[in-house]
């Protein structure tokens, strides 16, 4: 989706923390997002590398934690992990399916700093 915008937003958040907490270097940034939230981690990493030059975030490695997507099927009452959301239950083929996880927006969880 908007990896340049996301990279800029990550750099702003990290810079705020660097100013407040006075750390010199960010070794890594732990991020999480849902499998179905349309985030391209490779594109984001590239955008981040380019945009973080001369900011407190420069040189930090982005570490991604992918949150699984899952559905609940009202026909067979199963909760299942899925790779894509098609609205069809992979177990019984039923169409009364609700997406229960997988669209979580990109979050910063943790920074490793010196």
């Amino acid at each position, binding site marked *: *989706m*908007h990896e340049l915008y*996301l990279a800029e*937003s*990550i750099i*702003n*958040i990290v810079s705020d*923390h660097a100013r407040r*907490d006075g*750390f010199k270097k960010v070794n890594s940034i732990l*991020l999480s997002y849902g499998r*179905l939230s*349309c985030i391209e981690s490779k594109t984001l990493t590239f955008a981040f590398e380019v945009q973080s030059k001369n900011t407190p975030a420069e040189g930090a490695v982005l570490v991604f934690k992918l949150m699984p997507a899952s559905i609940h099927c009202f026909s067979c009452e199963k909760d299942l992990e899925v790779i894509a*959301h*098609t*609205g*069809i239950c992979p177990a019984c083929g039923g*169409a*009364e*399916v*609700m*997406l229960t996880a997988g*669209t979580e*927006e*990109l*979050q*910063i*969880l*943790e*920074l*490793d*700093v*010196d």
Partner: protein
Amino acid sequence: MKVTVVKNVLDANNRIAEENRKLFDQHKMFVINLMSSPGAGKTSLVERTIVALRDKYRIAVIEGDIQDTFDADRIAKLDIPVVQINTGGACHIDGNMIRETFPAFDFSKVDLLIVENVGNLVCPAEFKVGENIKVMLLSTPEGADKPAKYPLMFQESSALLINKIDLMRYVDFDLEKAKRDSLALNNDLKIFEVSCKTGTGLEGWIDWLTKQIDAFKK
């Protein structure tokens, strides 16, 4: 040393969208974020909606396009306040672009604000602008596979208008599949089959929208 942060990276936009929403609430303005592919008929729907509802509500429009003022010119001909946002390459409208249009409007004289987003089935669904509802169009020449290919917008929308229903027999559009796949993604989605060219089916959309606006204003 580890520092726990836990911060949503889209927060900056969400926060602006919430501020917009507060301002809209103060003026009891109902706001629609209208989304579709390019050429699905968003501006035609806006024109039809204005003509149907202009006696009942005071309407204003924000037009989003990469460049040009073609759409805003169409709306201005109806004598409705309209601002054109040219995103200059950005593929969606975000909360901040909407905020920048505010000086151009007198919100005390607006009941219904329609934001026509940039034609794109992907990104507009991810950026809130402060709307009450998201509404999307899918036109029959685009094909019935779109819900399966671009699920997010179908999940996020309150209403789906299947437009150019008058062309269906020429373009091999599987209406039942489109409806079935859309509802599978979003059980609460309200679907209307319309033609913004001939006017077919638009009364259902207008009735539904009127109910949403009146319920909000109460």
